[in-house]
């Protein structure tokens, strides 16, 4: 928790309604996302029970596994999900723009799940389907392993900070609003929406309490309410199992479908309502840039699936894992920095900690030139800008800072001195002034200008040098064997 988000929670608790912690939207929202609300059977290892899925709010598809312990029925579910999922995902591949470093699709698919547990479901369902073979004893529909590889791709992207390929509704909401309850309770989508968008006549706490009552509002899954399991689902599955006359099967299935529909529909509606709330916010300036990265990754994986298409390994080797961690840290740092630069309310956090400050320019030495330090008496332009601020600045001399409205210009802190009302911060502009000796017009701040400078920058995390995969030290398991799916992978029991 940060100072701002904690204070916002206090505000929300006092007012009984959620308060904003962002003024712009920091996630990309696709024009036509695919919503997936999965349910799994309690106790089993990610056994799908049902799902509501689709791109149209009014026309969700309901998929049901009448007996989740039956392997064939699970794979039939996977095949049906693939029928919906694959055409949607592959539908973005054809429309391509050529860039200097290769092609990139102009848009990408977006899969939205209700919560973090939904993301975990997708990851495990991808894991349980991507190794299947389409021949031999355990043959499945050809679409099943494809589905598995794509789901795995989405699940891996979901771990990357700032990616919008598979966001969870709860995470998106929590990024933009603070409730008057704990983060733990915010994991309940219905309770969270109760604070953000309470039904008429109720306040946040009342709506959240109602939302927590499974008789009033089914959990957003994938785990179902134990009461529902014991009282409704178990008898309905038993009735299905007991059918001996095939003509009675449709009725038994219908009973299950109705039961599961009642558990899925409220969550389905909530996810769409969450999207409504998020769409009202104007998009942050760096959102399209991050979506471009998502589009590139999508394009890359699509190409990989055509050219090679082997399933992703069960686990990363040591070097791959370390690289991945490093990539994650950098993605996190740049995501944090970008959000702050896009949004004064996020920047407010850095202002509280003194890593950023808002000040007004009181003096400028615009044409200052200094030796470039590389001899030969060459001079470079290094204007000095002095700002006065009342913020609790905690910067050190030599630190790099950038202003939110002058993102292309790096400055270095050269002096910090207290004055009668606050602190005088002097910065030396390093670049972004054009090529000629005198700074280009408008490229240096002017007296009277009000600017917010931050030292929380995207390139904050240094990447450690990593050995090549084939040089993995034996302490880390030695060089990884290139991954080939084995007999064992495909024969793996899925009882």
């Amino acid at each position, binding site marked *: *928790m*940060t*100072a*701002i*988000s*904690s*204070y916002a*929670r*206090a*505000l929300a*608790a*006092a007012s009984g309604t959620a308060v*904003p912690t962002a*003024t*712009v939207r920091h996630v990309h929202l696709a024009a036509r996302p695919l919503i997936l609300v999965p349910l799994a059977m*309690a*106790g*089993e*290892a*990610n056994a799908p029970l049902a799902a509501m899925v689709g791109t149209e709010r009014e026309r969700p598809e309901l998929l049901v596994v009448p007996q989740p312990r039956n392997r064939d029925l699970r794979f039939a579910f996977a095949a049906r999900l693939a029928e919906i999922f694959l055409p949607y995902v592959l539908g973005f591949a054809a429309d391509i723009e050529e860039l200097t470093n290769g092609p990139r699709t102009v848009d990408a698919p977006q899969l939205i799940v209700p919560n973090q547990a939904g993301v975990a479901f997708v990851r*495990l369902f991808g*894991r*349980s389907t991507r190794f299947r073979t389409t021949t031999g004893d355990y043959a499945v529909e050809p679409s099943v392993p494809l589905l598995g590889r794509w789901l795995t791709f989405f699940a891996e992207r979901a771990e990357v900070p700032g990616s919008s390929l598979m966001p969870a509704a709860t995470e998106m909401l929590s990024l*933009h609003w603070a409730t*008057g*309850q*704990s*983060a*733990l*309770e915010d994991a309940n989508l219905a309770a969270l929406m109760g604070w953000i968008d309470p039904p008429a006549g109720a306040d946040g*706490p009342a709506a959240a309490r109602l939302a*927590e009552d*499974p008789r009033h509002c089914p959990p957003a899954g994938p785990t*179902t*309410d*134990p*009461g529902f*399991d*014991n009282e409704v689902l*178990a008898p309905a599955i038993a009735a299905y199992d007991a059918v001996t006359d095939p003509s009675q099967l449709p009725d038994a299935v219908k009973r299950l479908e109705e039961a599961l529909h009642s558990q899925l529909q409220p969550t389905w509606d909530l996810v769409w309502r969450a999207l409504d709330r998020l769409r*009202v*916010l*104007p998009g942050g300036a760096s959102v399209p840039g991050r979506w471009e990265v998502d589009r590139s990754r999508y394009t890359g994986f699509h190409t990989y699936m055509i050219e090679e298409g082997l399933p992703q390994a*069960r*686990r990363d080797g040591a070097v791959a894992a370390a690289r991945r961690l490093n990539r994650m840290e950098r993605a996190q740092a740049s995501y944090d920095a970008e959000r702050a630069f896009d*949004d*004064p*309310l*996020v920047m*407010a*956090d850095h*202002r*509280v900690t003194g890593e950023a400050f*808002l000040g007004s320019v009181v003096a400028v030495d615009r044409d200052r030139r200094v030796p470039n330090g590389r001899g030969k008496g060459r001079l470079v332009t290094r204007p000095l800008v002095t700002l006065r601020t009342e*913020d609790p600045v905690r910067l050190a001399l030599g630190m790099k800072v950038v202003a939110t409205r002058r993102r292309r210009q790096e400055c270095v802190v050269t002096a910090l001195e207290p004055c009668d009302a606050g602190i005088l911060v002097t910065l030396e502009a390093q670049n972004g002034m054009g090529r000629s000796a005198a700074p280009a017009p408008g490229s240096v701040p002017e007296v009277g200008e*009000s600017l917010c400078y931050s030292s929380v920058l995207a390139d904050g995390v240094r990447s450690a040098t990593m050995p090549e995969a084939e040089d993995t030290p034996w302490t880390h398991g030695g060089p990884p064997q290139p991954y080939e799916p084995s007999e064992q992978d495909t024969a*793996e*029991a*899925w*009882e």
Partner: protein
Amino acid sequence: MHPGESVQDRTESRLDRIRGSAPPRRHDARTIAALTRNPGCARRGVLDAAGVDKDLLARQVGFPAAFGQSRFAIVRGNVFEARVKADGCVDLLRMFHECLGSEPGGTEPGGTAAGEPLLVTGDAEPDETLAARHERTVAALRTASGTDRPVLITHPLLRLAVGGQDVHLEPDLVLVRPGGLFHVVEIKSFPVIDGQAEGEKVAAAAIQAAVYVLALRRLLGRPDAVSHDVVLVCPRDFSNAPMATRIDVRRQLLVLDHQLARLSAVDALVAALPPDLTFDLAPGPDGRPTRPAAELAAGLSRLDARYTPDCLSMCELAFRCRHEAAGRTAALGPSVREELGGVETVAEVLELAAGTRAPTADQAEAADRLRTTARMYAAGLAAGPATEHAAGDRGPTP
């Protein structure tokens, strides 16, 4: 109080009164494990020591807990345990061998494994009293350490003193290796997929196993005879096939030891309570407790709670305590509370932030930061693009 009555007796009789006529709810491994989370809560400390049925109490005061268990999960758990123990546990022994790294099967001079384990069942026999079963399984445990074959004892009935009271505990399995080293084995039905399981579930299983280790150590009186390496048996990947994982529970043992020692503090807690305090849930003719909810609620308010959101996942009284904690920063989570300078209530936080309340000496620093935060929050909100979200009347970007 009568002369000669010990503190312990006095506490004991007070606790009896607090519980009333209902039979005591004893601790089990799960509730002991829960002690290590939120140990500072006096309310739970007293109620647990008295053996009050917290679930019933919560229902009675209008805040029923939501700890239902799905039939599907129970069935799966039973099926898996049966499968693990099938075939005389030979398979299981091979897995122990792999995960414990040495030869739990013992090695004969020729280098071959000593073969099948000796199976002892500790499960209840018809008409057997708890005491008899305890005696029987303890005897079995003691003789087991003398054999040269590995011994597996299913469901031995152990005993552990918790807060001055004996608690019965039933580990799934205890493995005794030739040479006499004991390992606690827990069978759990959550899957380990590609070598990874859900962290929370593993943590819960580890602390529970640590409770058994502790009980076994105290029972045998030889701490070094019981290994701090416990074995967790879970289904592998998406199958029902078991796999064994070794877990070192030394850290959990330390925490437990510490918590159990603290439980004696119940004496002091109880001594400070009004002598007539009771949560007697004696049922009336309709089977429901006769004591009015208001009286029970009033009683609860005599016991200091220390609510944190974590309570929601471990204590039956959580909804009630959360209700009481409304308006307190602790209800927003420990890290939020900390960010708010540890100030007790939301109202105080906001007043300090607005400068309408004079901070106490030790609130000065927190108040300073809260004022800054409030100022930055308002400025940040106002500087954002004007939307309905950012409360439209705050004006456009400056």
